[in-house]
């Protein structure tokens, strides 16, 4: 029972990190209708920027704030230089543009920082696990969970109550109608990219505190996709819930199914990594828009 609880809690905590990265995907999709495949590389850039400032001796919180500012500027720049030109083109072109961007970012990051694994020295969060009753977890997981919840509250209220948030939702829903109501689509898109870059920066920083900052963080951007789909591509609470569901599922499958496969069946397979993808594919057959995605009602 204690073991089970531990597995669940560690799943929820990992899910918090998934949720952070998933938030970036959802934000860009919600505001501009673009599936951003450069998300992993954006996370990587955020992590590296924070790390560089932290190793220069800047306090951790200040380093995060600086990386948020740089992320904001980079987001604006990326949107203005690349994506601005493709407004009105087919969705696939835009997706492919983000793929091109991901190669570009990856090359630049490797050029500047190389492929080595960097760690935050001195460590920001204590390595001693925190224990609540029988449950043990690391401090950094707790903080990322807290960050995910705080960001959830910020973004939900941003989209519900502020002028910018509402105009973003309007643009994503129907660009033409939004333009005729006096919303500047260009402004909305650049803000969306800026915010997504910032969210990715926070996610990347926390990820980097767990296993070090290296190029593999970029792959994380893709592995969180099932979490995004589960919640629905344009729902902020969905991203969080999806992240936690996928985290819990991964840790349950990793603990119980994999050991069952090895010990009872005798097959050395690990289905922990692909379980979310299988689950996602089957799930989409029954609920094509995730839990909270907008169902598009089509009329001929």
């Amino acid at each position, binding site marked *: 029972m204690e073991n089970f609880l531990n597995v669940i809690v560690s799943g929820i905590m990992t899910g918090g990190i998934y949720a952070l990265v998933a938030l970036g995907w959802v934000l860009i*999709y919600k505001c501009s209708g673009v*599936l951003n*495949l450069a998300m992993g590389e954006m996370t990587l850039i955020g992590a590296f920027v924070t790390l560089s400032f932290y190793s220069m001796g800047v306090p951790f919180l200040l380093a995060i704030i600086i990386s948020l500012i740089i992320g904001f500027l980079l987001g604006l720049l990326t949107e203005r230089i*690349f994506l601005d*030109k*493709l407004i009105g*083109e*087919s*969705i*696939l*072109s835009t*997706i*492919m*543009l983000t*793929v*091109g*961007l*991901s*190669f*570009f*970012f*990856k*090359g*630049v990051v*490797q*050029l500047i920082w190389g492929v080595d694994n960097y760690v935050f020295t001195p460590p920001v969060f204590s390595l001693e696990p925190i224990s609540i009753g029988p449950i043990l977890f690391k401090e950094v997981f707790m903080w990322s969970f807290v960050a995910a919840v705080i960001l959830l509250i910020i973004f939900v209220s941003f989209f519900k109550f502020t002028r910018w948030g509402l105009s973003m939702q309007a643009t994503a829903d129907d660009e033409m109608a939004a333009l005729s109501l006096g919303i500047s689509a260009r402004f909305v898109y650049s803000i969306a990219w800026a915010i997504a870059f910032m969210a990715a920066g926070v996610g990347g920083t926390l990820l980097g505190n767990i296993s070090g900052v290296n190029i593999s963080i970029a792959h994380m951007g*893709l*592995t969180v*996709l*099932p979490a*995004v*789909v589960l919640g629905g*591509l344009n729902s902020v609470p969905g991203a969080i819930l999806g992240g936690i569901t996928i985290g819990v599922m991964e840790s349950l499958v990793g603990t119980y199914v994999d050991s069952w496969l090895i010990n009872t069946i005798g*097959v*050395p*397979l*690990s*289905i922990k*990594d*692909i379980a979310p*993808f*299988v689950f*996602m*594919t089957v799930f*989409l*057959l*029954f609920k*094509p*828009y*995730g839990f909270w995605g907008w169902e598009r009602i*089509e009329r*001929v």
Partner: protein
Amino acid sequence: MSSTFLPCGKYHEKYSQDHSWWQTTFIKGKMIALFAVVLILIPNVANDYWLSIFNILGYTILGALGVQLLIGYCGQLTLGHGAFIAIGAYISSTLLVAFPWPQSFHDMGIAYPISIVIACIASGFWSVLFGLPSARVKGFYLILTTMAAHFITYKFILEQCAVSFTEKGNNFSIPYNHTKLGPWLVDSISDVYYLMIIFVVISTVILANLIRSRVGRAWIAIRDNDISAEVMGINIVKYKLLAFFVAGFIAGLAGVLVVINAHMFNIEYFEWFLSLWLVGIILIGGVGSIHGVIFGSIFMVIVMELLQTGVDYLSYDIPELLQQYQWHYLAAKLTNLSTAFNYIRESVFGLLICVFLIFEPHGMAYRWQQIKNYFNLWPFSY
């Protein structure tokens, strides 16, 4: 009305003439010249390096044909096509190497054709399996399920199942005397070249004819508006799955070529990059056009080769030259920078895709059509 531009005074008298492939003498001559170049000139003139580049081009075209069918003709966005190529490659090579064929099968050259056919059919059905969600979802959500196809194939089938259930694992070479198609032993690079030409021509002809048949019209109707297509009486699930099967089958052929070009199966080739690269090809070449597949493949393969050559040049040839002139300091600097050049290559590649999408959004096939129109209508283009 014929789709090609007829010269003055030439008229069609039958409907079948309107639909024939090669309508004018000029086009006939052009195509025969093309075949002569491809079948006679290139194998005689090109050295092994260039032939292997042509082989890469060949399987890139085959892979991109499948993606073009799914995205450009049937409107099913896919970002996991590399998975189906991988399945074709893996099954064909494992069957050939690990299956206990009787020695006479190898001698008569039956084992290899059988494993090719089985591999293609398997990758067709693997593709249908991941196309199943297309009955319910479309657009982004379909992209995600095809991405799942990649992760499941790569991370589970190739990385784990291949290692734990077969002795060969996921990185093995294929004996040269096994790849025998009937009496024809495919062992040198020029043999692979001819095999590649056969595969590419057959698949292109079949696909081009499928597209102008009833099946193809159904696909195009689904692409343009699937609800209207359903109202018109097209069984959209059936046709979508058929598109996935055909695309997967051609991907299987591509996989066979990937393996035989190097005479080995290497898991690293089938990274997710492959799927992205194929989609990039059809976007650069032009969506919804078979010309686009060929132009896009040529462009991407040549760009990749040129970038690689540039990197090699900068990191080996120029330093050597500098050494001769006693500029040891600069030469050492350049050699040290060789990893940096690789990263620069990667970002230049990304930038090229972006620039192409921004400045030529309709693709190269569209530009080709414009050029042809210009010369057809010259000198009075109004």
